[in-house]
């Protein structure tokens, strides 16, 4: 499918038109139960066409090459019933230079990827032969091109390299999962940090210890922040949620809402990060969005349509694949670290909890900022030391309440997946509940 030809036909039949083309080649290498299982190559190329006709939005997508007329017909058919368009497509602009494509990543041979995964599994099994491991090594090369009837024609490429391992330990009915992953735009050749992180989790979880219910000091590790706190926090910054009146931050722009040590940025311009890009998925030039500055709420995130409805401007926060229309999303969220070593945070706690991974955190009232769920990996702290793993323990609270007063920020910030850079965060009082089975033997 020739994008220019589709745009050409669409602009003649509609008032405005936009073609979004994505072409990605993904090569995952999968190990299951300690063994190499499957090598894959997924080459997906598709096109999404948005049109505005008589003030209404139409959308159609296709992965069929050479179907120009059908695609335009479908988009126009849909536009007759579509939502009212509250924006115009953006003209060409100056786009920031962003480094996110490394040819070396695209060239990593399959054999090297297999060896990396095998190395991780061998490393884990050498230290803990009773574990059953899955591992994944994946490289992706992605090209995006956005053309529209206002003259925009912008494209970029990026590479993503992802390496991860999980280990499962089963002792009778006691199950434990540990693991870590790293994501970069550049080839990852050294897996020692992933290995070390995984083995540290295993060491800390060596035995199960009883926990008690109460309002206790809790440290969320970077993984803990990602699995428990990030989603209910970020959703409050979505311009769409603000517009619907559903964000607890709706009236708080410019107000000191959080602890003054808290600064959060959504940054699509960081060099060599997998979420970096010169423009968003509507062709609006990327910009750094300061969400929270020393506790003050500075920006909500908008795509073009929501910005139009709210009387704001787009913050270049549109995200999509070729098969769907844009929605609002953050790129790389950076929570500024503090000065405390993780060990010192632990040392200052008389009785508390370290939260590494929570499941079911999104089942409550996420829009209201509520978090909560089962701590599937977390450690009890007693008199300044991690003493073992807790089980049958749930945590709950409200992120907006929690971030009003931080206990302390760690200096141990790291990337969790592609989208979050955060330190460990200590809160002095978090609701922890545990059932009697929490006292299970180790």
């Amino acid at each position, binding site marked *: 499918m020739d994008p220019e030809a589709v745009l050409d036909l669409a602009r003649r039949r509609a008032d405005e038109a936009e073609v979004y083309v994505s072409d990605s080649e993904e090569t995952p290498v999968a190990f*299951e*139960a300690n*063994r*190499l*299982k*499957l*090598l*894959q*190559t*997924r*080459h*997906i*190329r*598709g096109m999404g066409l948005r049109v505005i006709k008589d003030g209404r939005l*139409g*959308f*159609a*997508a*296709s*992965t*069929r*090459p050479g*179907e120009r007329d*059908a*695609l335009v017909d*479908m*988009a126009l*058919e*849909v536009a*007759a*019933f*579509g*939502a009212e368009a509250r924006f115009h497509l953006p003209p060409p602009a100056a786009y920031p230079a962003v480094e996110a494509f490394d040819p070396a990543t695209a060239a990593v041979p*399959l*054999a090297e990827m*297999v060896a990396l995964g095998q190395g991780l599994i061998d490393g884990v099994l050498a230290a803990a032969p009773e574990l*059953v491991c899955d591992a994944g090594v994946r490289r992706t090369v992605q090209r995006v091109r956005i053309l529209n009837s206002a003259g925009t024609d912008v494209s970029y490429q990026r590479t993503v390299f992802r390496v991860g391992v999980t280990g499962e330990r*089963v002792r009778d*009915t006691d*199950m434990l999962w540990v693991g870590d992953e790293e994501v970069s735009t550049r080839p990852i050749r050294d897996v020692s940090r992933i290995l070390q992180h995984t083995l540290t989790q295993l060491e800390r979880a060596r035995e199960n210890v009883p926990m008690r219910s109460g309002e206790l000091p809790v440290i969320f590790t970077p993984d803990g922040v990602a699995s428990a706190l990030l989603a209910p926090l970020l959703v409050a910054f979505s311009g769409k949620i603000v517009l*619907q009146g559903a964000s607890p931050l709706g009236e708080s722009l410019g107000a000191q809402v959080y602890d003054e040590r808290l600064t959060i940025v959504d940054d699509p311009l960081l060099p060599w990060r997998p979420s970096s890009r010169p423009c968003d998925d509507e062709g609006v030039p990327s910009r750094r969005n300061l969400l929270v500055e020393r506790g003050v709420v500075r920006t909500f995130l908008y795509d073009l349509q929501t910005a139009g409805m709210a009387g704001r401007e787009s913050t270049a926060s549109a995200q999509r694949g070729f*098969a*769907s*229309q844009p929605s609002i999303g953050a790129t790389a969220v950076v929570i500024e670290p503090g000065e405390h070593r993780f060990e010192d945070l632990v040392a200052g706690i008389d009785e508390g909890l370290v939260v590494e991974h929570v*499941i*079911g955190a999104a*089942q409550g*009232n996420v829009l209201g900022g509520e978090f909560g769920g089962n701590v599937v990996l977390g450690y009890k702290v007693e008199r300044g030391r991690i003493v073992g793993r807790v089980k049958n323990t749930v945590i709950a609270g409200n992120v907006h309440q929690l971030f009003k007063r931080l206990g302390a920020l760690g200096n141990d910030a790291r990337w969790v997946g592609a989208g979050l850079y955060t330190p460990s965060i200590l809160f002095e009082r978090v609701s922890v509940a545990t059932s009697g089975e929490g006292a299970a033997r180790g």
Partner: protein
Amino acid sequence: MRGLIEEALRGQAAEYIDVRVEESELTRITYRGRQLDEVARARGAGGCVRALVRGGWGFVSFNDLESLPRAVALAVEEARVAGREESRLAPVAPHVDVVMPTIGKDPRTVSLAEKKALLDGYVDVIWSTPKIATATLAYTDTYRRVVFASNEGAYIEQSRIDVTLSASVQARDGADVQQASLSLGALNDYRFVETLADELKALAEKAVAFLSAPHVRGGEYTVILNPVLAGVFCHEAFGHLSEADHIYENPRLQEIMKLGTRFGERHLNIVDGAALPGLRGSYAYDDEGTPAQQTDLIREGILVGRLHSRETAARMGERPTGNARALDYRFPPIVRMTNTYIEPGQARLEDMLEGIKEGIYAANWYGGTTTMEQFTFSAGEAYMIRDGRIAELLRPVVLSGNLFTTLRNIDMVGNDLAMNQGGGCGKGGQVPLPVSTGGPHIRIRNVLVGGR
């Protein structure tokens, strides 16, 4: 097409290769609040190749059919890198077949204007109820035609149309927000979409009714599950443990799922099968070309079977069951359920209620998680049972417990049966795969019930 595929497979140095080529057409209409959120149409085409060399798999997917020969070569190369042991694949006779679906009302013959007018009416129905805070309504129809071919000589063409409608309504009173939702679907037939006004009205009223309903007092109760909840319970808590790809590499699960183990009383019978016609999980051949079957999982309380692909069947010394399914051309097939249900028994609902002084009648599905033997499910709707009668509506409840204890505690199996067609199962990133689940009313003793 056939010539092209056969040409691409010829002379390749792999023990086994298969190819799937598909075309699809999709229409999606969604509403958020009172507003139309999105109308979209899409046409897809794509294919994939899977190759097996010395026990290792290579898999390549693509959009452009001209890429087929290159994709075959790449899949074989990947399989060679992955292969380190002996290949094992249970034999299946290579079928050559064209399967034509029996179509009721084809959604592709209904204009977009007509569909939208119908849904607009439903949105009005939902919003005519006071105290509704927000609602979402989502309709999709998807046509998919898939050609499967293998270097063993199979060549099978199948097509299907999936129609789904889901709705979720939130009612609000001050800071109190309550939610009710439903998820419906049908294979090859649009008609169910046309007659949902009463059901959606009842849904909105239910969300509002939750606002003034009391919380359950937590504790152990005798619980009656309605057919929808019995079916989803059977799929989520038990069915996934029957998928052999989990079992054959997991010694602990092999022990638990040893054939011949007693799981329940003699009245407990659980079946999975795509051969049952006309349901969302129905098909004639799976995505490895194995004919659809009916597989007894539990017969008279005893574990007697499990679900297989050709590879898991060979590895466990059992027979393939036709359960290797792929969401679409982007994915290799993995072991999945199809239509999973508890067979009806003898008991009438009145008999089940009789003698319950204080119990819970739990209906429909909201959500849940399982970790092997532990499960936690939210019912969409629940009532107290008092002195043998269904009494007041409760706020949604959570049921949890140990799967094996719970299966053994099923003490009555109803004489009715209903299948829920709205299911979309997720596994290995392949979601939503069409399935159906069902059962009769079942009664379970000593279920731990909490508030949500």
